């Protein structure tokens, strides 16, 4: 999308905003959040070696709503980019996108909610961005449901939008504190051809002794077979909690998205592989500050007759606000040495600084990965990052500065910097 198109979209939504403002309750609040990111690094372009690349990103969020009572509301979020160095580094990339922009009407009665415009739908088998309408509501005491219809945003640039459509919904039966059982359906058509038709089942069952069972299965109606089963159990005994899980993916049915398929997933759909994942997390909350986590995961490939395992241990100290110090070590091992690596991460975030300190927080991050088989002649990746920030104007403006260094198979001693200016504005209308 060009900057011109992006600005045109923003203008349209601004007009909607101005038009709708009087319709929204008198106590409505307008909230605007602007995040401007200035980045600087060097890259090889088609005409220059080590050319300076200085993209500036603007993320703009506008919310117009009455936070204390339901009714009409408007939400918008999008981003745009301009390259201050003006070289051809971004010539093949979109320069901005409206991520969502929709009018919303909600009422307390039965939690009825209607959204019209560009929005995300993440429920049941749907994980989509669409331009259209979504309605949801409680359906009596034990049921709730939602339906949506429109056009999938992901198909906007593929041979125009004629013949593109998406619709679906989810019906849930729930008994508060006992269980939720959901049935969902989704169909996507791309240029009048079926791209996806999926139905699914999801569940949350709250068993005695704080044992919970969650899971979902999806069935590909175009290939007429199960695509995915994902189930997990959570249980806690005192400070210890455990989360064993099971997943099974049939590649042909999981990646088989018909007219929507794209590489590298199109290739995977043809491989007829079946992946079974078994794993567990074990968490020990030592005290209010310390948390220890152990993770183990086994990947089993039925057709390839191969397997990989990932093991990790993590320790985190948490203080006031967001202050944290943590470390993680992980190992990927298996039948194929090409997939083996170990990972070490140490990070800090400290926002409990004295008033005499000129900044509000300091953060650091180190990620080191060692590869069993070298990638482009390098057998490790080192990433270092330092960050800091300070708030001004009664916390309405925050400036954040970060610098990171990378030495890895793709970039040799790469240094990057970023300055972020976040501005929050709120006004009662």
């Amino acid at each position, binding site marked *: 999308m060009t900057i011109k198109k992006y600005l045109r979209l923003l203008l349209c939504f601004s007009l909607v905003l101005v038009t709708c403002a009087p319709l929204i309750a008198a106590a409505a609040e307008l909230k605007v959040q602007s995040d401007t990111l200035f980045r600087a690094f060097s890259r090889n372009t088609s005409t220059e070696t080590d050319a300076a690349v200085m993209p500036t990103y603007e993320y703009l969020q506008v919310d117009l709503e009455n936070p204390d009572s339901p009714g009409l509301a408007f939400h918008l979020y999008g981003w745009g980019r301009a390259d201050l160095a003006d070289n051809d580094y971004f010539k093949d990339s979109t320069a901005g996108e409206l991520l*969502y922009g929709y009018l919303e009407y909600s009422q307390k009665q039965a939690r009825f909610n209607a959204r019209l415009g560009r929005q995300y739908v993440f429920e049941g088998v749907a994980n989509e961005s669409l331009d259209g309408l979504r309605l949801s509501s409680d359906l009596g005491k034990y049921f709730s*449901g939602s339906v949506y219809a429109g056009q999938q945003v992901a198909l906007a640039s593929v041979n125009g939008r004629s013949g593109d459509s998406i619709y679906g919904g989810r019906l849930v039966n729930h008994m508060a*504190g006992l269980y939720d059982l959901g049935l969902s359906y989704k169909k996507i058509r791309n240029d009048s051809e079926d791209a996806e038709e999926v139905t699914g089942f999801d569940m949350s069952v709250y068993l005695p002794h704080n044992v919970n069972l969650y899971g979902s299965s999806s069935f590909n109606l175009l290939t007429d077979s199960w695509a995915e089963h994902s189930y997990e159990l959570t249980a806690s005994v005192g400070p210890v909690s455990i989360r064993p899980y099971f997943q099974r993916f049939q590649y042909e049915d999981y990646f088989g998205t018909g007219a929507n398929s794209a590489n590298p997933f199109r290739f995977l759909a043809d491989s007829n592989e079946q*992946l079974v994942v078994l794993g567990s997390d074990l968490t020990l909350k030592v005290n209010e500050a310390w*948390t220890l986590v152990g993770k183990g995961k086994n990947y089993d490939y039925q057709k390839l007759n191969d397997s990989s395992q990932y093991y990790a241990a993590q320790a985190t100290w948490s203080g006031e606000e967001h202050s944290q110090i943590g470390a993680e070590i992980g190992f990927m091992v298996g039948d194929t040495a090409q997939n083996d690596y170990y990972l070490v991460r140490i*990070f800090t975030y400290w926002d409990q600084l004295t008033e005499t300190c000129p900044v509000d927080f300091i953060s650091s991050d180190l990620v080191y*990965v060692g590869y069993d088989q070298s990638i482009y002649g390098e057998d490790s990746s080192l990433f270092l990052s330092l960050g*800091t920030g300070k708030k001004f104007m009664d916390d309405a403006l925050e400036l954040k500065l970060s610098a990171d260094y990378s030495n890895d198979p793709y970039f040799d001693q790469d240094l990057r910097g970023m300055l972020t200016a976040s501005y929050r504005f709120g006004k009662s209308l």
Partner: protein
Amino acid sequence: MRNKHMLNIGSLLLLLALAACAALDNGMDLPAKHISAEDLGINPTTCTDCHEARGEKLAFGSFNHTATWGQTHRQQASQNEAVCSMCHQTSFCNDCHNSGSELKPSLKNQGETYRQTPHRGDYLSRHRIDGRVDPTSCFRCHGNPKSAQICAACHG
């Protein structure tokens, strides 16, 4: 043509049923918005600090933001969008779940190391292995024609 008419009639009936049932009893009776962190005085990430793990309205214990929550909230979020939206705008989710933005999740909020965002560090190299080991996790965000454009540069 007949299928299209059936679909339209079915959709209309479903909408009418939804509207009719909406006038019935409330279900979970949850508020649209949670009290904000500013008004509460604390960051409400552990629901059971105030609510019972098995509350009358919700199994609040399932939504505690534990040390692994960043990697494990998929089932809760896909089954309870309304619970997430009591505290989070979609833009918060977009920091990670947004393949429409060219900045990878860990980069947009580089300094906020406590957020456990995915793809931290040199993920360009690591994705060669993670993608071979479990491509299903790539597919969730990069599986449609638009979001797969980032893969096309190398994967065709």
